């Protein structure tokens, strides 16, 4: 599993940081940044974050 984020689409709702703080952060502009590639322990939370993102700025790649 691989994650990509699109800061241009981000609307700063912060849902990803609440769901998976190990994987996602907000930079100084409040936009999504990726902290790590989720390992087995973070996968479910990262998927939740992707599903919750209101602007679909987080994509999960199953490869």
């Amino acid at each position: 599993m691989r994650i990509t984020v699109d800061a241009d689409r981000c609307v700063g709702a912060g849902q990803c940081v609440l769901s998976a703080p190990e994987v996602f952060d907000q930079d100084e502009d409040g936009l999504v940044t990726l902290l790590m590639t989720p390992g087995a322990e973070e996968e479910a939370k990262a998927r939740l974050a992707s599903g919750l993102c209101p602007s679909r700025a987080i994509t999960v790649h199953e490869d």
Partner: protein
Amino acid sequence: MTLSDPLVVDFPLRKPGVPFPPPGYAGYREHEGLVLSHLPNGDRVWLVTRHEDVRAVLTDPKISSNPEHKGFPNVGVSLGVPKQTQIPGWFVGMDSPEHDRFRKALIPEFTVRRVRAMRPAIEETVDRCIDALLASGDSGDLIADFALPIPSLVISSLLGVPPGDRDFFESRTRTLISIRDSTEEQRTAAAKDLLRYVNRLVSIKEKWRGDDLISRLLATGSIATHELPGVLMLLLIAGHETTANNIGLGVVTLLMNPQWIGDDRAVEETLRFHSVADLVSLRVAVEDVEIAGQLVKAGEGIVPLVAAANHDENAFECPHMFDPSRSARHHVAFGYGVHQCLGQNLVRIEMEIAYRKLFERIPTLELAVPVDGLAVKTDGVLYGLHELPVRW
């Protein structure tokens, strides 16, 4: 896809004595396609009641938030600010990309990190409200003396309203949202007072910058000075009564379900369960678009009912149950798409601190009237309580 004739229903304005969300919503969700209704002014609109359809509407680029478009739903009740779209900077009424400049400028003010840093100040505000309640005797109204002042004081502090002006600020915002207890003229006057006040505040901050949102926006310059008052009014209105209604309804629900007192998960479930902003996310199709197999033509109004979506059995198991142990984060109480509530993480913290401190400091808190005697708001777009009489 061919659909049978759409179901036509009364527009879902709240009525005294009818529970919320209205039991009728469940039937709307079962009907294929969308549900047709008529606004009080006679215009026809599509009601959207399923969770996945509400999300689809709120992210479709063929669907607009701009009330200037022909066919935009006019539900006949407002939050009290007349002609909102004529105020520059009223960016909830804009679409991308015009909207995005405002949103991006404000995002840093409401990040998870930033609102967590506001926690000590919010705790102090909540404590002061409880001090005042306790000092006043052994009973009170939690809407007037707790739920309304907390968000007003928090937003005052965020905007940099000097402490000496906060009573003025609070009284005008209270008039603005008191649809039952004020006249149209009084609300218009209060809106003018507030607009004049925020204009003055911006001029003061231009000369004397401080550690506040207005000063930071002036420093970055991404929002023009003439647009700032509209942005500030929007933050004020979006964050006040919505938060207050959630605090009030949450306290009642916790009193009815005391096993959840002290469990912070009650915050998210309160947001879902009560969905106070059912009629807020109004839209209009600007091109022909298909939603749930239903053709919505350009110029037709769309009303996504977030309370209906948040009680959709396909999205939430036993949705009529107040169950904070469920995973409720995918609710659409804050809307969805690029307009999803900017202040949502601030609201969550305000609610959490309000519930926790209230029940910790007043463990004998109880309703002073029967729960079915509480006066429910039926006169504005937001669901909530007019009063919440309690004793301890």
